[in-house]
């Protein structure tokens, strides 16, 4: 996958991406807004699927973009900008999950779930069904890292190499986490098929 922000016709994506990074480093606000607009859906989606909560996902996404803004000067291009952004997002989300679990000192699967009736999103509330609840419950049962790997692979379609880079593990570990997640979900959702 390559960065596609502000790509002009006929211009190689790398050049476009390199120029965007330069503009971001120079503090160009317009470039920053373009960057946010390009990636916000992906960042929010990953955050939501790891955290399973609207407000927490928004906080996580905003924090991720702010951290990119703060640390763009240290970005050296060893990985692509979007991989870096994903890594920051996943780290924030995983840290939040750990903090919440530590604060409440309850097993992972028993963390309080979002009350869908109280959801601020009417469409989401309308979609609330027994199946969705069961899937939500099953995904929450996955350990944090497994949940992140599963999200990046299953929903974002990233390769295990990219996921390994984002999550900070080997390609083999990424695969193992993903297979474990799929097998667990299969068992937990067996009766729904």
């Amino acid at each position, binding site marked *: 996958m390559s960065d596609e922000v502000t790509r002009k016709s006929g211009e190689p994506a790398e050049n476009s991406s390199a120029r965007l990074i330069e503009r971001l480093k120079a503090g160009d606000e317009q470039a920053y807004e373009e960057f946010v607009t390009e990636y916000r859906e992906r960042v929010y989606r990953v955050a939501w699927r790891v955290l399973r909560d609207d407000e927490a996902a928004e906080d996580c996404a905003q924090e991720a973009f702010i951290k990119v803004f*703060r640390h763009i000067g240290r970005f050296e291009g060893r990985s692509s900008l979007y991989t870096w952004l994903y890594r920051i997002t996943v780290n924030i989300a995983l840290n939040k999950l750990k903090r919440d679990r530590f604060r409440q000192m309850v097993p992972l699967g028993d963390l309080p779930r979002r009350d869908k009736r109280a959801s601020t999103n009417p469409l989401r509330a309308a979609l609330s069904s027994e199946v969705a609840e069961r899937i939500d419950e099953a995904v929450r049962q996955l350990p944090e890292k497994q949940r992140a790997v599963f999200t990046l692979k*299953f929903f974002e379609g990233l390769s295990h190499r990219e996921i390994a880079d984002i999550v900070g593990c080997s390609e083999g570990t990424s695969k193992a986490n993903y297979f474990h997640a799929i097998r667990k979900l299969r068992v937990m959702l067996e009766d729904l098929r």
Partner: protein
Amino acid sequence: MSCELNKDLLIEYIDGDLSSDEARLIEEHLEQCPECRAEMDAFVGVRELLLDDGYVEPSPFYWTRFNARLMQRIRRPSLLSWHPAATPRLVPVAIATVLFVVGFTVGAGHLLGLRGPGGPDVADSGQDSVISLTSKQHVMSGEGVIELADYSDTLRPSTFAEPTEGPQFILARSDRSQDAMEERLSSEGFRD
């Protein structure tokens, strides 16, 4: 379960992660192995279920507000000062702050009687006492991290208890070296 095929290969097959040769071998195996066909159906079934996991894409209006909130947070002066492009502007400000605090502290020392009748002139004594730097402000510069004293709560009573010693002001390189800061940034995932 009698078939010894690694079932993870079925997951990879469904995800399209196998090479064309590997995929062909799996297809040939599935034709003659009912057990793996059942496994395959199970994985396909759970995959279809999971696609509707309750996530709903927010509305365009939500995204407009998202950008507005984010840009508002970024424009806050405290955050702007973090941006690398803004950092050089901080250095003279920081130096001016330190000079002001130094002047203020010396003046306060005089007012509080450090220059007692017949006692030594603290400001001119050339001797050292220590102001503890308990609260520090980190300033990033091209040369590394500098810690500047925040003197708001740092005057140690002993400075006044030992009027024979003059104050020493410290503008030191960080105890945490640049390397340590680099390491911390890497561990938190801010390194690309």
